[in-house]
């Protein structure tokens, strides 16, 4: 019976709007992901990145893999193009810089987890981010080994960077321990039950437009003219046409189609949560790892 009640409660909760996330007080953020495009994809976080930058944050992107398989070229060529396009995309979003760790794309399962984690810990200690954005390490059904690997390395790096006995060699270099207080985690919600967001981040149309522009900077993998040609053929086969695409080249049409999709998904996440535009995340706050103390700290912490 209790189980049934809980199930019903969960169903109601899923339909109810998510609480609106506030931008945490802070100065710096890191986006830690395996791939060049993970920050801007339709289920991504480009809107939140734009919003953090607008709020005065400085941000850096850590791209853990070399993206050698993503694109129509040979491995080294893809790596270089994707690196360049990633630099362009983060500049559009207003981030300060990019670190490419160069681990082998789609082969990160056998990557040594602790070595990857050590690299992330070092960069966390260097930048001392108030916010980290990444994949949800608990998301189910993510078929991409790189997403799982980086999310798992990151899940520990965010708190282990705060322990002096973890990689004491960094301390010798003059870096200090730093625990990341806020995390925004994303996953594809179309990958089944796994990822259930707990906050919605309200976006403006300008945030969405910037995310879109950054997204289409990844021209090696998105907004390819062949996609527009395929859409036109499919429409023609059903005796349909989209007048908005008529006077556009295939390349312009591809960008327009991607823009519609981005606008649609951002509006959909907004509408679901009583907002105009939104992205959704699993948010972890500074003391959420201490479930027995969160209430006490909320009620008893005071300003100095």
């Amino acid at each position, binding site marked *: 019976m209790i189980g049934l009640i809980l199930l019903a409660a969960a169903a109601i909760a899923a339909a109810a709007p998510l609480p609106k996330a506030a931008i945490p007080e802070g100065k710096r953020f890191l986006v830690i992901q395996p791939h060049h495009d993970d920050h801007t994809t339709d289920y991504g976080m480009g809107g939140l990145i734009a919003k953090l930058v607008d709020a005065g944050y400085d941000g850096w992107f850590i791209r853990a893999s070399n993206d050698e398989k993503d694109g129509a070229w040979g491995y080294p060529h893809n790596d270089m193009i994707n690196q360049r396009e990633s630099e362009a995309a983060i500049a559009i979003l207003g981030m300060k810089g990019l670190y490419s760790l160069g681990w082998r794309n789609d082969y990160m399962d056998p990557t040594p987890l*602790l070595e990857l984690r050590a690299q992330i810990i070092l960069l966390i200690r260097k930048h001392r981010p108030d916010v980290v954005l990444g994949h949800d390490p608990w998301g189910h059904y993510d078929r991409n080994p790189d997403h799982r690997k980086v999310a798992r390395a990151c899940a*520990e790096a965010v708190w*282990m960077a*705060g*322990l002096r*006995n973890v990689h*004491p060699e960094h301390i010798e270099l003059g870096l200090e321990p730093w625990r990341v207080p806020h995390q925004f985690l994303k996953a594809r919600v179309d990958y089944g039950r796994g990822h259930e967001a707990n906050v919605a981040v309200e976006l403006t149309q300008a945030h969405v437009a910037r995310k879109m522009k950054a997204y289409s900077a990844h021209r090696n993998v998105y907004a390819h003219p062949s996609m527009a040609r395929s859409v036109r053929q499919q429409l023609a086969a059903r005796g349909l046409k989209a007048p908005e695409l008529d006077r556009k080249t295939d390349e312009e049409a591809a960008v327009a189609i991607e823009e519609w999709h981005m606008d649609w998904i951002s509006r959909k996440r907004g509408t679901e949560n009583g907002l105009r535009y939104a992205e959704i995340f699993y948010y972890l706050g500074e003391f959420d790892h201490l479930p027995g103390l969160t*209430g006490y700290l909320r009620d008893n*912490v005071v*300003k100095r």
Partner: protein
Amino acid sequence: MKSLLCLLAFAAAANSKTILIVTADAADFVLAAGGTIASMTATGDRAILLRVANDDKNAWDLAPEQAAARTSAECEQAARALGIEKVVSLGYREGELGGVSPTELRDRIAFHIRLLKPDVLFIPNPYAEYVEQLDRHYTGMAAEEARHTAALRNHQPPLAAIGVEPHVTRELYYYAQPVDPRRREPEAAATFVPQPKVVGIEAAFSKKLRAARALKTIQTAAAMRIRQRLESTGRRLPLLDTVNEESVNKLVEIELRGLATLCAKDFPYKMAEEFHYAGPEYQVPAKLRR
């Protein structure tokens, strides 16, 4: 009357169980399951703790070697407070289980299951989400597998040669501190699926508190980290203006009461712990249980 008492004592002894508790670190089993373990040992059950990692990083101002030594001694005290008879430490370095072969870890746990032949296993719930210390996840997964392989003769054949026979553990408690927002949702109703179980711990709370307070090194580090975070953002927690034994003990009590209240929510207890539980009937497919 005397013979009746003897008879009762005999019955209690006959029903007493052997419990093996597997934990990644010195704190997790106390915070998530300490009250339940203390209740069981109080009624005559015999408990052994298998501690996988060495807590060498969980100190405020001690080098790893000192931290490992200090937390080991404190873990022994915590275990004693819960009525646990013995602590076996595997000695893996804290925070590094992600780099340990899961099969190696499984086989080391399975060895102890075959050696001790427990009736009840407590293991970290490897399916609990948003658990920060992934050592707990890796330990839980290895223990979950170990429970299975310990029962199979074709695993680790040399053990049978020295008389350490395969063993089926009949009861299994998966424990985790309440961080997973979906932890109360029932699993699918299919066969062989453990279900949520909430255990009242009011009578055992003082023992659990004594055990948690025994972990001085870990608790002081936790308090210092909270204070440091607040200080760096222009805030303070009056309780931690001075971090000493008294304030740390108070903080530990507040945390334990907080955990116990969270777990008791929606149940007829003031204080509780929560598990996923697979009892003896779990061994039998649902179709055959009737």
